């Protein structure tokens, strides 16, 4: 089933987000910056799911939040449906937000415990003043049923629900304004295995039903392969490889992607024992002071002196297959 078409919904170019590190209590002096996102460029097509994977601290969540302008980017452009979001402010930006929503990782922290489920799911409608009280009630019941909850739950509080049900509430809230684009920021990583599949199936159903476009952020590479049309891999603030999912998983061109994929265990004792493992040495360097040249060179099994000198360009090596490595040709 091929869902993607060629209409670009979101175009991100050279997106940079640095968080300042300050010293001093009164006169805060900037002494450095966390290079959370350091120049990422990609497109998301209408109706597709772009998976964004990487290890903790690689900047994948920051990328999602910066796209939605929850963080204002340090530089770069985010073009959504023909509108440059970075240039928008105040009411104009608020209006655009109706079209793009977010589902958060922690279903316990992202729902206000003092609000009823009905108030939580209906809040976007109140904030954006798009419906009156009666319409809101109808819409909330409708939304709860769409995500597989009982409409009668509207008067209950979040603590009465399990993790999976809470995540459904979060999904209902994100759908309230009928957005076209949703950033799913690790929506299943806090859930048990049997519940994860429930939520993923729900997200897939909703995508088909409402023609949604997803940016699916996760660290679980198996789940990302399952849900995505194309996948981008991040390492230390930059995208190092982007391709359609089968190409990326079957023929990864960046040594980091290769190591990452080989590290994921497969629930099959025979298939798993046949695989070749690339065990990376050491940890991810600090994003405060990233390595010169290629950021992966400190852990890369094929690094040479060129890698320390110049940062590899993020280039389209094969149609639709982008990679940032000087020596990627070796793996073609």
């Amino acid at each position, binding site marked *: 089933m091929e869902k993607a078409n060629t209409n670009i919904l979101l175009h991100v170019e050279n997106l940079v987000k640095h968080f300042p590190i300050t010293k001093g209590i009164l006169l805060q002096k900037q002494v450095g910056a966390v290079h959370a996102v350091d120049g990422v460029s990609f497109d998301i097509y209408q109706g597709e799911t772009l998976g964004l994977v990487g290890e903790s601290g690689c900047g994948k969540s920051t990328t999602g939040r910066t796209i939605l302008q929850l963080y204002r980017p340090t530089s770069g452009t985010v073009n959504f449906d023909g509108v440059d979001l970075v240039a928008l402010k105040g009411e104009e930006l608020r209006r655009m937000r109706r079209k793009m929503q977010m589902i958060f990782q922690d279903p316990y922290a992202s729902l206000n415990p003092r609000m009823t489920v009905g108030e939580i799911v209906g809040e976007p409608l109140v904030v954006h003043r798009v419906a009156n009280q009666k319409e809101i009630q109808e819409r909330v019941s409708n939304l709860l049923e769409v995500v597989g909850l009982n409409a009668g739950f509207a008067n209950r509080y979040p603590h009465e629900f399990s993790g999976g049900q809470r995540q459904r509430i979060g999904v209902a809230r994100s759908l309230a304004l009928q957005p076209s684009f949703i950033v799913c920021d690790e929506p299943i990583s806090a859930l048990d295995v049997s*519940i994860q*599949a429930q939520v993923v199936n729900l997200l897939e159903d909703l995508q088909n039903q409402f023609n949604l476009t997803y940016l699916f952020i996760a660290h679980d590479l*198996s789940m990302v392969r399952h849900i995505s049309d194309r996948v981008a891999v991040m390492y230390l603030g930059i995208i190092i490889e982007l391709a359609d999912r089968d190409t990326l998983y079957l023929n990864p061109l960046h040594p980091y992607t290769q190591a990452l994929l080989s590290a994921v*265990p497969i629930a099959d004792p025979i298939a798993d024992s046949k695989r070749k493992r690339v065990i990376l040495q050491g940890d991810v360097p600090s994003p405060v002071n990233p390595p010169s040249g290629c950021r992966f060179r400190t852990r890369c099994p094929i690094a040479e002196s060129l890698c320390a000198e110049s940062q590899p360009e993020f280039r389209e090596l094969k149609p639709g297959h982008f990679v940032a490595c000087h020596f990627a040709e070796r793996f073609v």
Partner: protein
Amino acid sequence: MPDLLLDVKGLETQFKTPDGIVHAVNGVSFGLKEGETLGVVGESGCGKSVTMLSVLGLIPSPPGKVVAGEAFYFGQDLLKMSKEEIRHVRGAQIAMVFQDPMTSLNPVLTVGLQLVEPLMLHLGMTRKQADARAVELLEMVGIPKAKDRLGDYPHQFSGGMRQRVMISMSLSCTPQIFIADEPTTALDVTIQAQIIDLVRRLRDELGMTIIWITHDLGVVANLAQRVMVMYGGYIIEEAPVKELYFNPSHPYTLGLLGSLPRLDEKGRHRLTSIDGVPPVLYEKPIHCPFSPRCKFAVEHCWKENPPLDDVTQGHRVACWVDTKTGRER
């Protein structure tokens, strides 16, 4: 069976909570052979950690209590030992590593001091001997410049390095049984691969017997020889690793494997999720704990809890239904 290193029989553990008594473990029996690696798989709250904590006398009491069962280790029942006696077993002969390396290390003591403590306590080493051994241990788990790092505090180590420190600490007295309670869950995949690689190497070098607790069916697939699946405080299936993955027989095991997307998956298919949520057992169930979520459930399942019976040699399943035919056994 005399060749069992650890023989647990009929273990039951309960917790008193304001909402009532939670039956966390409801009659768990299993044996552990010398030199084998046993995987224990289940979702949160299924009793997999509580089972192992009970065996080691680490259940906080109150609110927890081991109400029944025996756990034989070299002819001695660990559950009947005094606090003093079990303290000599724990750490020295059976060691355990926990999920979160940050909370299991004391943040105000140096790593060196924490490593030296069990050596002096259990093995009666002097400080000097213990220091030397600590360096050896850190080198064994692959910590670079081990000698210089003895004086560092836990926060100066990364997550993966902290877990290495924990493993070196648990190995300090060369225990016979090494229990790992989700040691890689808090870590990134590349670091997880490092740790699993390390444990596999240490197992081959030291001939350790390992119990590896996890919720990830992928992690134990290539590590364990035998796997136990737990649900609602019961073992619901137990089999040699290949038998379990290629011939799963309990509906819950089938569901777990079906809800797991595979890295080598081809084409698009829908995940077969398990409806509903895992139970919290305020009463010991009279019927099968999985029956409310089970696709195969028949009338019998609601009347009587199925015992864990052999279906083939070494493959035990607790289910009234033969999932291959859909008919009652």
